[in-house]
């Protein structure tokens, strides 16, 4: 039924009011019903149309993309269509409806603009086709599954910190030996002596050959291994700030990957909860950050506990040589003392382990509010959470694990600083 049928019915008012009575009303109603039935059989069935969806390029969260729906009239009849290109609400489709008038064999394209509001693989929903005849009193509609997926990568907001961190890392290059000379540095090159250089870094043999003072320079070690383990268990599903803890963990992993692969280290990322969800490596990858983003796109936290024994064996299998293992997880008393601490010795035997966790900014706010009795009890509960995580950090330090805890927005930067610090002191 369409608005034209309503108009026809309203037109029926004229004869009905001119000739009041059951007979005239029945005759007018019968005419309208006959017209509607005839029109129903005149309408080309919607299944005559062929549909194809082509999703647009994958984007980072916050950038617009699009999806193209191609409507082809394969039938020998003319099709007058209204088409709804439905997408799940988080895909942020702006306008999904349009009308087509297709001659036999003709095709048309409907480009739906999308502005996704959520990371992940966003599915196209059904395509609904509504068909009508030239009379247009009756329309027939049908919905079809036309599978399509738009991939939305993690936003990687923290990439704005990347230039400053890279700059910091570069400052380590070419420093004179004494400042940083240690286990993690290697010989870089020889250059002419300038005033202010440490006399102890003068290479006398080279100076004798060159008849001029020459100093050795050093740079941080390259080709180290970094393994980032991102916990996607139930503890990562916690809401924290604008997103979840997992989002902040992904940001940290992306920034560290960008920084470390830029500094010449090899980065492997393992996302795991009760099972291994995703593995990505910067090895032989032209754009490690992009590849990692793609690998992480479809992963969402699940309500399981993490299996740390499996994770530790995966880490050991990933890197046989000494590596920096970064565990991005939660400082939860149960999981740390029962699950992580027992597997630490095997990891520490071969690797250096660092633990990064997201601190809930809501906790500090709650701990600071102390007006009424209820607020005092809430503050005490929040304070007890903070104390627990602090004591866990102390325990981890005792076990030889450095830890960093920060608010979701600050964690990527804090983890990058920790990495630079370790690099500078040659502890990788």
């Amino acid at each position, binding site marked *: *039924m369409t*608005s034209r*049928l*309503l108009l026809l*019915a*309203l037109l*029926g*008012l004229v004869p009905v*009011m001119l000739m*009041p009575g059951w007979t005239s*009303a029945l005759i*007018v*109603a019968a005419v309208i019903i006959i017209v509607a039935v005839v029109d129903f059989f005149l309408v080309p069935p919607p*299944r005559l*149309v062929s*549909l*194809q*969806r*082509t*999703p647009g*390029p*994958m984007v980072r969260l916050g950038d617009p993309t699009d999806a193209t729906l191609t409507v082809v009239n394969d039938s020998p009849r003319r099709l007058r269509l209204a088409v*709804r290109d439905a*997408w*799940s*609400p988080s895909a942020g489709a702006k306008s999904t409806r349009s009308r087509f008038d297709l001659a036999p064999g003709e095709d048309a394209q409907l480009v739906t603009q999308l502005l996704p509001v959520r990371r992940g693989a966003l*599915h196209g*929903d*059904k395509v*609904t086709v509504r068909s009508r005849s030239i009379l247009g009193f009756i329309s027939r509609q049908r*919905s*079809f*599954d*036309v599978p*399509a*997926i738009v991939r939305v990568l993690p936003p990687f907001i923290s990439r704005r910190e990347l230039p400053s961190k890279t700059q910091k890392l570069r400052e380590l290059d070419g420093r004179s030996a004494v400042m940083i000379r240690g286990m993690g540095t290697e010989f870089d090159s020889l250059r002419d002596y300038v005033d202010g250089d440490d006399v102890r870094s003068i290479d006398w043999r080279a100076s004798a050959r060159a008849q001029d003072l020459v100093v050795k320079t050093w740079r941080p070690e390259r080709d180290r291994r970094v393994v980032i383990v991102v916990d996607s268990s*139930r503890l990562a*599903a*916690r*809401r924290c700030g604008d997103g*979840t*803890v997992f989002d902040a963990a992904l940001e940290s992993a992306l920034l560290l990957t960008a920084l470390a692969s830029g500094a010449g280290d090899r980065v492997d990322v393992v996302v795991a909860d009760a099972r291994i969800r995703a593995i990505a490596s910067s090895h032989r990858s032209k754009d490690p950050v992009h590849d990692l983003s793609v690998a992480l796109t479809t992963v*969402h*936290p699940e309500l399981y506990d993490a299996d740390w024994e499996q994770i530790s064996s995966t880490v050991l299998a990933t890197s046989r040589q000494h590596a920096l293992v970064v565990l991005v997880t939660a400082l939860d008393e149960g999981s740390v003392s029962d699950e992580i601490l027992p597997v630490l010795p095997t990891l520490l035997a071969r690797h250096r382990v660092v633990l990064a966790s997201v601190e*809930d900014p*809501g906790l500090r706010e*709650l*701990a600071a509010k*102390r007006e*009424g*009795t*209820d607020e*005092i*009890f809430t*503050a*005490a*509960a*929040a304070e007890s959470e903070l*104390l627990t995580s*602090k004591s866990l950090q102390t325990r981890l330090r005792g076990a030889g694990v450095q830890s960093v805890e920060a608010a979701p927005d600050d964690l990527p930067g804090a983890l990058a600083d920790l990495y630079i610090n370790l690099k500078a002191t040659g502890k990788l």
Partner: protein
Amino acid sequence: MSALIDVATRGTRSSPAVPLTARLRSVGVWIVAAAAILITVIATMLMTSDRGSDAPLHYDSTARDGTKAMVETLRDHGVEVTTTEDFDTAHTASGQSDTTLLIPTKADMLSLGDIDGFRSELSTNDNRLVLVDPGYTVQDFTDRITVNDSLSPLASPETISQPDCTVDSAQAAGPAETGDAEYAEARKGTEGLHTCYPFAGPGVTQIDGGEVTPGSAHGQLIVDESAGGKGDFPVTVLGNPDWVTNAGIDEEGHASLVLSQLSQTDHLVVYYPTETGEFQAPPSTLDYVPSWFIAGALWLVPCVFILLLILGRRFGPLAVERLPAIVPAVETVHGRAALAARSHDRTGALHTLRTGALLRIAKRLALGPEAGLHDIIVAIANTTGRDPAQVESVFSSAVPCTDADLQHIVHQLTLIESEVS
């Protein structure tokens, strides 16, 4: 990379062939709904047509005061019974030969014209008329019978009346229950009129002053065989309605009496007068509205229906969103706080807050991990210039007995901590 994904996720319309079972399932709902509606309608129709009327003395009524038993018994005995509520049908049927017309009740609803119609039809074929407790309406049918209004008001008739007459069927039937009304001949000494079952008992006397002269023949059953009076057809009056009801027909001699009176002819017409509704309703405001306006207004009803169908039709199903799991984080904190508040664990709460504050202050005052509680308190007192005893009380010894105590100590604690920084 992008080309790969492009190919992998490009989708075309999936096969339009819906499995037969799925199609049947979606169609099944409508079939079941249509069947349910059909069954309901049929059942309603059957029940309404089967139930019959439950009006008193109605020929279809199976209630205690119905007369279906009598009608069915007569049918079983070979009498061709025509039952109707329609005047025209009754009027026509009563004109057949060898017919008895029975009006079991509500004779007073008939107009004089209707009664004249019946009388002319009955007299044409010398058909019989049987009335059940007609009241004063009996005078419209015949001028030979009337209600016995000469009965003494002090009379208390016995509950069982004896025939006390020469009518064969009454004598054969024997005694019958006494009703409320008695009929009598209109003029004393009318010929060919038999009265049976007169009231008998203490105080039953006829007094003067009524229409009926004392000493007239009277009784609850009056059989006028003479075909005299206004019409020339036999009239029988059954004075007690209980004699013909489903409940009463099997008492005493009722069945014999009634059936013998009604089975004297081959045909019996039972006419149950109903209100014809011909009375004129007072004119309502609707009568002053022009008919074209009413027609237009009524026509808008289907228009609105079409509009609702148009507006209510959804353009495809709702789009589905597969959301990831998200756990509200600080919920556990609130839950733990509520538990502590319910158990009034003030000491525990205060202890936690003190520990947190001491750790922060120790860090700020650059005290090492080896510093004990006393060292920190002394350092606080030195920094803030407060009395060490007061600081010690706030940070260690004071015990909160009430909520007010707790608030006071916590406020002091927060104040001192802010002073240190």
